[in-house]
């Protein structure tokens, strides 16, 4: 599956987005889906470490950190502009 729009990796800090599609072939991406990063869920980019990798996202009040290489597999539709 090809990702066309923005991804979790391109969300700005403080910006929210709804996951629209996931490139789920990678078992590590499947693991992230088990943790709740699935289609239809709204996530917020909360922070990132120095260099922008890994990134922290919040969904329904819980924080998950993921590496940039995995964040690229989640296509999102941004909600609002962020800061």
């Amino acid at each position: 599956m090809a990702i066309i729009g923005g991804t979790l990796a391109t969300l700005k800090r403080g910006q929210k987005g709804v996951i629209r599609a996931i490139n789920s072939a990678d078992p590590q991406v499947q693991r992230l889906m088990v943790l709740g990063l699935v289609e239809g869920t709204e996530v917020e980019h909360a922070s990132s470490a120095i260099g922008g990798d890994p990134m922290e996202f919040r969904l329904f009040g819980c924080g998950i950190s993921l590496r940039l290489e995995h964040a690229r597999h989640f296509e999102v539709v941004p909600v609002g502009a962020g800061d």
Partner: protein
Amino acid sequence: MTSSTEIRVPANEITVAKRIDASIAVVGNPNSGKSTLFNRLTGLKQRIGNYPGVTVEKHIGLLKTDDKVIELVDLPGTHSLSAHSLEEQIAVDVIFGRMAGTKAPDGVLAVLDATNLYQGLFLVQQLVELELPTVVALTMNDAAEKSGIQVDTAELGALLGVPVYPVVATTGAGLDMLRHALAGIRELTPPRRVRIWPELTAAAERLSEDAREPLRFAELERLLIDGPTESNQLIVGKLSDVARSEIDAVRAGLFEDEPPIARDARIRYTWVRGVLGKVQKSAPAYVTWRSKVTDFLNLPVPGTIGLFFVMAIVFQAVFAWATPVMDAIDAVSSSLSGLVFERLGDSAFSSLIADGVIAGVGSVVVFLPQILILFLFIILLEDSGYLARAAYLMDRAMRSVGLSGQSIIPMISSFACAVPGIMATRVIPNRRDRIATIMAAPFMTCSARLPVYALLIAAFVPATKVGFLNLQGLVLLGLYLFGIVMGILTALIMRKTALRGPKPPFALMLPEFRRPNLQTVAIQLLGRAKVFLKRAGTVIFAVAVVVWALAYFPRADDLPADLDANTAAAMQMEQSWLGRAGKVVEPVFEPLGWDWRVSSAVIASFPAREVVVAVLGTVYAVGDDADEGTLSGRLKSATRPDGSKVFTLPMVIGLLIFYACCLQCAATLAIIRRETNSWRWPIFAWTYMTAIGYVGALLAFQLGSA
């Protein structure tokens, strides 16, 4: 079939395990307040064992009510019944009743964190499908209410089909109701099936037709989602021949070309989102003072500076607070030894008690201050949620050396002492990462290397200035850096060779900061200390006694009576097994510039590297002016039979390199054995590190003397 009452416990503890009315598995997400609740319910009536063949700890506790004794098994935290790690696999195996030595649970206590219902319900929904009597404990209610979440427990219970009990583990609110419910779990009707995925239910029913043995829906579901994996073979064995041949076709029809785990996660979380809309009155938000701290620490640079600040405090505390206590332990053990000689006279028996047993016990107990202080901090950091954040912040840097963020705490801790550092590798979920970290940790310059460094540097490195820096200080710094470089190289090499494997999934939960519960901290700390004394302490003690015997026997009986004590001790050393061993191995160490005295001191320091200083003190204490000169003075004037100096600068540099590398520490070896559950890794680590030390010392001496 073994029952849980057969787990070996000391005789004085057996009385508590004679009659058990029900065994309940305590299941929940990591960080859901599961262990705090478990400790609250069982108090000190718990014991820690190991699951067979693995290093995962088994926590069992007893819950007593007026007429019932309920056994609670605190399982490792998991997110799903599709296991991704060893810990999760153990939890799943126990739940399904296929863990050797642990009986199948009669019921489930599902721990649900009110501040993280999203992930919690994903798991609880799967637990409900087990069709076992289930009780849900809703924890962190107070925290949830503070951040504006109201949970409708009645509605939640109705949707899940199981009773939900709100509890606050820190204050004890709601615990009586929960205890009562757990005591009566056998009378509870198993929950009805929540049909959230009709196609899966239909496929499961189709597979179960004509089965050889009755199958539970949850088992069939696992088989369909995870496939006929090794751990699912038991389930496959119960199917009829027809069903067995159809597994692949049924799965293909169910999942089409999508990965099963992905489709399963999407369907279940979609259901969870629907439930959340009904039971949760407002969306969770970070509104407390903690959110301000979190926000600040989330900025990349302040967060990283904050991390180094925290680590500096921890390192300082382990180093500074432990030292006075360790000195006190040393003082007590040597005055006890003195007392033994005073009362019992000088005999083999009193020497065994004083230099063998008391010194051996001392060498075990002396590690306790560092372990307790370091673990106090690690448990506080872990329970407050900061440890996960530290791993997150350091992940990028640690990844460049083939490890992940979780390795940072064990590595830094090892600068104080590798023993608690290696014990701290439990936070690393991936086995390959964990072993690579364990192999790298002993290279960090621990506090036991300092006396060796201090003696040799003070005696042989001139205190000249290099620019505005002291050469002695520079050499010490160089040894620290050398240790770090060797550790990193080791981790890199290990991850590329023996521990080669796919990069571990890095999906770290970052919980909100919360105040740790003191009872939980105390129980965990006590557990760590017990594990160290029992599992590592015995090995350290045994090695200490063996080395004592090697130095004590055989006795040099025909020494002239007018000999001074120092020379007598040195002559005894020369003719003991240890001295003889030193002479036997002398040719091996000859190329490093060591004579038999240095060789036997190195052998004697096998249990603890700092012992080399004391043995060198004994073995070089020969001659008229032995009492006058300091140890470093005696080393400086030590000569070979041909009159040449033993301690030349290249030889000393080599000896320093040897001690920077070698694994002369019985405690570290014992703890590696304990943490990897095999002798393979400690033997490999010792051989590898000693070989590197030998080659390093050889190069330094040969190149330096050429």
